[in-house]
């Protein structure tokens, strides 16, 4: 005689099914966090690149940056001083001398 209700699944089979479902959920969550991290990194990179203050460039391209300054583009005063400090501490040159070298071509062009 057949029973009206289907037989309950075997406990070990049910356990395996639950473990598989849990592993799948864990994989999905980890993948989502990984995707979120990459998306955040790209967005932050874009934001810093587009609207973040750039300060001074290296001494090699400092002239170019000085010209950009004179054209009225706003840059972060804070980061400019940071970069100047970094140069003075790491390369042993004074920030005032690097600032003078950046400004000099501008002065010439204006006079």
């Amino acid at each position, binding site marked *: 005689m057949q029973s009206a209700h289907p037989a309950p699944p075997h406990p070990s089979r049910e356990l395996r099914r639950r473990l598989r479902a849990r592993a799948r959920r864990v994989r999905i969550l980890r993948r989502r*966090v990984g995707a979120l991290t990459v998306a*955040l990194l790209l967005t932050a*990179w874009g934001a*810093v690149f587009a609207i*973040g203050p750039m300060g001074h*460039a290296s001494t090699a391209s400092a002239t170019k940056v000085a010209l950009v300054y004179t054209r009225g583009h706003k840059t*972060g005063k804070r980061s400019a001083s940071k970069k100047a400090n*970094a140069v003075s501490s790491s390369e042993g040159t004074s920030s005032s001398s690097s600032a003078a070298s950046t400004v000099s071509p501008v002065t010439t062009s204006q006079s």
Partner: protein
Amino acid sequence: MLAVDLGTHFFWITSRAAGIVALLLSSGSVAAGLAISGRFGRMRGPDLRVTHEALSLAALAALVLHAATLLGDSFFHPTVADLLIPFHMNYKEPYMAIGIIGGWGMLILGLSYYARERIGVNRWKALHRLTAVAWILGVIHTLGEGTDAGQLWFLAMTLIVVIPVALLLAARILTTPGSATGNARRA
């Protein structure tokens, strides 16, 4: 738009972006951790635990990227020791040192999860609470030293992620049975 010499700034921009991501992910991770141990996290404990772990590992990866990419910055030019040892680089102190100490704290306390059996679960739990202190040091470093800290968008983003976590943390401290407030309430 500002003309940016990408070749010169690539590592600097990447480091700043990684720092931002580390702050966002670590805030999320601390929030998930507080939710696990708090009242409202019990319902989906296992999922929250996995999310907390994944967010922590991602935050640590971003933190390592934040420091490692600075090594490639031809202008800032730090040494490995400058980035690993507090007060080694005499630059924007104490915020630089605070960031290094916070970073080490995050790294050691975060990865200690995988050695919790060896440490002892109760001792590890007590140690793991200090991760919140490392996160606070990270926030101080961000606001004190971050190049973008003066920018409105950056401040808004930081406050949006930091305030809810800070409130969760405050609620947790105030409702912990061993805390001063808890003792005062019982008395």
